[in-house]
């Protein structure tokens, strides 16, 4: 299968603290890659480096035919990468001065020069798909956390990116709102959109993932098919992590 995005040897330090110690990742077309790992293992930092929200110290990124070394990426490369990817943040980060529909339209109209009428149509379609067709004129402050995150997902999907990066999209939500967001993400996955998802929702991860990556302490410890990682982990650290999450005891999948 073709790779959508390939990362090789990403390194990133904050001062003396080396957070990513040479991480590589290969995401195939239409695949859902789930990244697991304890807090502080560098999952967020990895996603942010892919999107150049963080400047990695070293490593290489290939997306389609474009290959860039993180250190030497120019403004144009960065913009190109950002326009081929989309991100869903832990705390939604909707544009607070814009309505739901405008949030979805912004990247289309301003960054991609899609005509406004066409963008509006696409925005309304995407909002309807996440079940928020009636909320297109609501401002983020008028929406619940779950609704905001669904708008954020619509915003990402509307851009038709080659990959969508999700950073713990449900961990800022009240428990009763988690379900609606996970359901929307499942639908996105069914559309065949390539996704990289950081999550602590284990049963969701198990359902949705084609490929699971376990990170600890700035390194990929183990990766493979969900069945392998969840039920036959080879590495001690993976086992310990899964035990702590209590997957085996809580879910009889």
């Amino acid at each position: 299968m073709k790779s959508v995005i390939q990362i090789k040897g990403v390194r990133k330090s904050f001062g003396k603290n080396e957070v990513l110690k040479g991480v590589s990742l290969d995401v195939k077309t239409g695949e859902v890659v789930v990244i697991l790992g304890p807090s502080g293992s560098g999952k967020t930092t990895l996603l942010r480096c892919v999107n150049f929200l963080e400047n990695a110290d070293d490593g290489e990124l290939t997306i389609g035919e474009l290959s860039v070394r993180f250190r030497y990426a120019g403004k144009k490369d960065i913009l190109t990468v950002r326009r081929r990817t989309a991100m869903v943040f832990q705390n939604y980060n909707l544009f607070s001065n814009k309505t739901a529909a405008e949030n979805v339209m912004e990247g289309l109209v301003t960054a991609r020069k899609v005509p406004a009428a066409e963008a509006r149509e696409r925005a309304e379609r995407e909002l309807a798909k996440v079940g928020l067709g009636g909320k297109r004129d609501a401002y983020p402050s008028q929406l619940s956390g779950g609704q905001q995150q669904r708008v954020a997902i619509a915003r990402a999907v509307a851009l038709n990116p080659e990959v969508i990066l999700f950073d713990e999209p449900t961990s800022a939500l009240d428990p009763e709102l988690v379900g609606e967001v996970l359901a929307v993400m499942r639908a996105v996955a069914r559309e065949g959109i390539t996704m990289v998802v950081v999550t602590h929702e284990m049963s969701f991860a198990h359902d949705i993932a084609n490929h699971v990556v376990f990170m600890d302490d700035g390194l990929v410890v183990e990766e493979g098919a969900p069945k392998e990682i969840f039920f036959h982990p080879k590495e001690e650290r993976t086992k310990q992590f899964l035990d702590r999450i209590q997957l085996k005891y809580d879910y009889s999948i």
Partner: protein
Amino acid sequence: MTFDSVYVWVSLKAALRCLHVTLLLSIVSLVLGMVLGTPLALCRKFRVRFAAQAADVLIPVLKGIPLVLYVLILNFAILKPLDALAESCAWADKLRLMDKIYIGLAALSAYSAVIVSETMRSALNSVPEGQYEACFSVGLTRGQALRRVIMPQALAFAVPVLCNNFIGLIKGSSIVYVIEILDVLGGAMASAQVSYRFLEAYIAAALVYWVLCAGAGRGSKILEKRFAGR
């Protein structure tokens, strides 16, 4: 001499004849303050080389200088070289005797640029980092992000503070009386030079400033409402 309200009326009319000067001074300096102060704030926010460092040093210093000194220093700095020039060139003499309102405008605008740049800096800081990141993640450039998302939010935050800055400028503009510009205060005072009714003149001037500031406060409330609701 007892208080005579008739003279308040006389002075009020004299003051209002100079209202345009006060309005010109305060409105132009607010606008120029925004035009100059916003880029200054942006330079500091985005650490533009040299400009940011210079602003970091200069703005706290300039903020500590009273407005009256801006007026006196600029008056001196502009007129003194013209004095010297005037001895040899006729045009310099003309410039020297021109309306001093330009000096007042320059002084108030410089002062306003400093004040407004601080307002805009706190306004920019009020926009969460996540808003920039969301902009970048959908592929906006920094300029687009500023124009479409960051500045609109910063402005909404800044509106009440800017209105306060404006009120400060309206009242502060009265300081130009030290270089004999005929504004509201100057006009009222001039009318008292004949009648020696100074208290009445002061009260007349105070009334005009109060109405202006109350109006600006009202405007602020309306603008805030326009920017709210999201």
